[in-house]
């Protein structure tokens, strides 16, 4: 059995936003008990990640590390800002995930106690994001 839908996620601005509950609800709706759930984001400056939910600091420091690895050009020069903004964000995006797959066990996301699924908006010029969720199994 396959259950799929594309959801519009509201613009939250730059940062990581937990969407675990939304995924859990979707899996429940699918009535699939065992299988996999694939998430796919239709964007080139927002990605998906599985992160630690025990300490809020972890999320912020992951974002800080990535910002250091590929610093945003937002503050460099206003004149080139609009076109250059896409470059570091695209680099961060390349090391992040466009698609993420998790197990479905007992009709729920089969993830660890301290794991959460996050939408990671990497651009200051955020927008509504389209997320396709596909649950496959029986």
């Amino acid at each position, binding site marked *: 059995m396959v259950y799929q839908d594309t959801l519009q996620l509201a613009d939250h601005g730059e940062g990581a936003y937990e969407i675990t509950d939304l995924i859990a609800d979707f899996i429940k709706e699918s009535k699939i008990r*065992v299988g996999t759930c694939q998430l796919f984001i239709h964007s080139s400056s927002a990605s998906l*990640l*599985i*992160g630690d939910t025990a*300490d809020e600091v972890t999320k912020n*420091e992951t974002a800080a*590390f990535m910002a250091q690895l590929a610093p945003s050009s937002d503050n460099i020069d206003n004149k080139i800002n609009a076109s250059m903004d896409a470059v570091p964000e695209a680099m961060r995006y390349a090391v992040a995930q466009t698609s993420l*797959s998790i197990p479905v066990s007992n009709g729920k996301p*089969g993830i660890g106690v301290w*794991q959460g699924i996050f939408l990671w908006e990497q651009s200051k010029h955020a927008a509504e994001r389209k997320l396709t969720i596909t649950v496959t199994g029986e």
Partner: protein
Amino acid sequence: MVHQQQLRVSTRGRGTFDISRQVDEVIHDSGVKQGICQVFIHHTSASLILCENADPAVRTDLETFMKKIVPDGDSMFRHIDEGPDDMPAHVRTVLTQSSLSIPVDNGKDTLGTWQGIYLWEHRTHPHTRKITVTVMGE
């Protein structure tokens, strides 16, 4: 057809551990001849990689590379309650994979001759890690 099974892998602290054989055993047990195998790790301080398995120096070099880009004890990190390797372990997990998908054909994984599935322990102390393997197909 869906077959799901959990593995427990004991690590000896930071490093890579070949789990290809355990994953292939699950595929064999599933009876699935053709389909997809998803491997998922339930932790945020250990991850999964597909890596070359001929020369162990490749994995030693990957370790050296990771130490260089995410140094233990980096002063930018505050999430260090469990030691200087605490936050770096989360970042290293985000930079690698929590989930892998591999094609199944003829009742086996279709990994390349020199590809291996590795659990990458990012904490310096030994841990027991939980992995869910889901095989789907017919």
